[in-house]
């Protein structure tokens, strides 16, 4: 019996989503701490953000859909909206961050995050 994907997803328990999100988050966090290439660090940060997104969406899925008369703050929409915000901010952040990395690379010809310990160049 082939079940539609939405049905399958619905059968996955909440704990599995949360576990995956936590795993991704820890991976991202550890990556931020141990990697010295700023580009990889950025990727790890993205990973952390996306794991949070995943958790937000999972909670949104398990919340009541929010009928008429109910506050949108308590409905699934609020979680989904938050994810949109996070993605927008992450995009902006990457744009700025990569610009900074490019500028540093131009002046120093290398980008090791441990060497960037001075506020002046």
């Amino acid at each position, binding site marked *: 019996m082939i079940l539609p994907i939405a049905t399958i997803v619905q059968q996955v328990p909440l704990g599995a989503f949360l576990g995956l999100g936590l795993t991704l988050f820890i991976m991202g*966090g550890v990556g*931020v*701490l*141990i990697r*010295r290439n700023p580009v990889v660090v950025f990727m790890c940060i993205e990973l952390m953000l996306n794991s949070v997104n995943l958790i937000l969406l999972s909670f949104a899925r398990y919340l009541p859909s929010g009928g008429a008369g109910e506050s949108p703050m308590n409905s699934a929409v609020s979680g989904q909206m938050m994810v949109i915000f996070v993605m927008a901010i992450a995009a902006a952040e990457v744009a700025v961050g990569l610009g900074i990395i490019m500028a540093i690379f131009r002046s120093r010809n290398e980008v090791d*995050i*441990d060497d*960037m*310990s*001075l*506020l002046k160049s």
Partner: protein
Amino acid sequence: MEAANYQAIYWVILLPLLGALFQTLVGKAMVQRSPGLGKLVSGGVAVGTVLAGFGIGLFHHLRLINDPGSVKAATITYFDWINLAQLHIPVELRFDALSSTMVLVITGIGGLIHIYATRYMAEDKDFTRFFAYLNLFVAMMLILVLGNNLALLFVGWEGVGVCSYLLIGFWHKDLANSRAANKAFITNRIGDVGLALGMFWLVALIGGNREVLGLTDARWLSYDVLIPAASQLLSQFPHETFWISLLLFVGAMGKSAQFPLYVWLPDAMAGPTPVSALIHAATMVTSGVVLLNRVSEIIALSPAAMSIIAGVGAITALLGAIMAWGQTDIKKVLAYSTVSQLGYMFIACGVGVFYAGMFHVVTHAFFKALLFLGSGSVIYAMAHNQDMRNYGGLGKKLKITYVIMGIGYLALAGLPFAFSGFWSKEAILGPAVNDTATLPLVGGLTVGAVAGWVGFLVAFMTAFYMTRMMCLTFGGKTERWREIEPAHHDDHGHDHGHAHGHAHDDDHGHEMDPAFFMTEEEAHAAAGHDDHHHHDLDKTHEPKEVPWLMWAPLIPMAIASFGLIGVWMYGDVWKAPHPHPFEGFLHSAEVVTAKNGKVEGGSALAPRNLEDHGDDHGKEEKKEKGVDTNTLVLVSALTFAGGVGLGLALYGRRLPASEGFDLSKWNPIQKAAGKQLYLDSALSGGSSKGVMGLASAFKVFDKGVIDGLLVEGPPKVVRAVGGLLTTLQSGFVRGYAALMQIGIIALVAYFAYVVSQRGGQ
């Protein structure tokens, strides 16, 4: 007593004060413009203010004597000074026998000394400064004796201290003088602390018991309220009485140069000679006796304090006499003699004959001022050389000075009957040897009686060392300055005895702690030895009699030194019925009321109960166990004759080889006497070392606790905390990231904990 009759007495104080102002504001400019005329005018003003004060004082003195009132004391109130709810201190003067006598002494002798000083200081460039200080001193001394409360007394007390400091250090470019001034000032501070503490204690006691005493007058610091109240109250508090008396006596010790605070007085001879005569012989040093007379009713309540006073007086008298014997500086002999005579005055106070102390103050003021001024004349004639070993045979050269000083000498040595010194000394020693009021000491003798016999010993020594001084200066045929080798400027030559080269042969033997003052080298570098010397004494010197302005003022003093004057003024000490006429005058208030049999709660300032103390006025019951008058006169005559005889035998012809410039030939006792028996170096050096030790202990405390802990501690803590925090700001990006994560985890954990505690709400 009509206080209004004495209203004008404040001019006595005001005139010298205005004189001092004149000297500084006008006189200086005048002297700068035309030295001759300027010095004439400013000297005239200086003399005039003091002599005018003498005139006013004499006028009021005669009015006081002839006052028909029974209590011969007037309190003249001028204006408010301190006005509190419970305490009212007006500026008021007390004109009674004690203060009027002192006014006459201060202005009379002061005036004569001012005249002398106009000539003595004529060539000094700081002429007006000198007279400004001198006038200010006279004014302060008058405030001291005339003030009617302890606060005013203290003003005068400190005022004369300052003036003394200024005048001792008058030639301040010579470092030795500045040192002497410092020493005098610091030593006096010790006494002042005692006086201040005694006063505070008295104030606290009286102020706290005002209601018990029923004092309605808020003016209770004034003598006429304070003294009766204090003697009434303190008779119930023997301990407090003892300590208060002792503290007041410590004050008197400082000003009146009693052992062990006498050390400043010999050094004070660094000042100009008129200053030595005025301050350090005639007036300031007597202020201790004046104070004890003022508070005599309080002190007389404590036999223990009286014993200490008499004992200290005797020690001082003895030490002064011993030390005078070893001196080679003519002024130093007189300085130690003053110390010794001040000891007599305190013996008198100690055995309860306060009036005799004052009597000796008066007679001593005349003949000691005379001797000092005479020695000043000798020094002047001898090119400012003060060493008696360079004198000799001056009797023929300085005839007038010789005769005048001879009179002073006989008065001080106590030639029986003829001279005033004898009368006042007898007035002290007679009651002293018969004293029974002080504490017993040895063999049934009281402290006072022992002090009295020591006094006779000192009388012998006084005659001896004064004969020595006179013989070395005026006697003999050898004119010793003709033997002086050409002066060589070896500043450390004193040790070898070649002191000729220096006009101010100051006692370089003083071993002051160099850290306290300065090292000798610095001293000599700073001294500028040629400042006020005219020329050095050498073998070609021809001493000439001093100008008339320098001997004429001595004539009145010489006349006053004769006993006949004293007898005329005060009656025959022996034949007159008890009490002593001077006592009768000085304490007229008490005596008169006592005679009329109507003593009402103790009148103003009288001594109490003097009959208890021994006297030599022929009281029958005393005669039996005490020493009678005739014996005393005999002893006195013997001490005089013995002292003079011994002196003449030893020094009549020449300077003994054992007292020459070669100190190694001196006998050890006399050498020690010449160096103050090493007491000065022990006391001054010891105390300065002690203070240094204390200071270094405080330095440790200051460096360690104050600086180290309180001042430098907080910054150290801040720096340490900051240092700890800077390690966080390493610039290590991943470190920041780790911290952020730890923080986030902690926050989340906390929230999770809170949420779980609330059961998911």
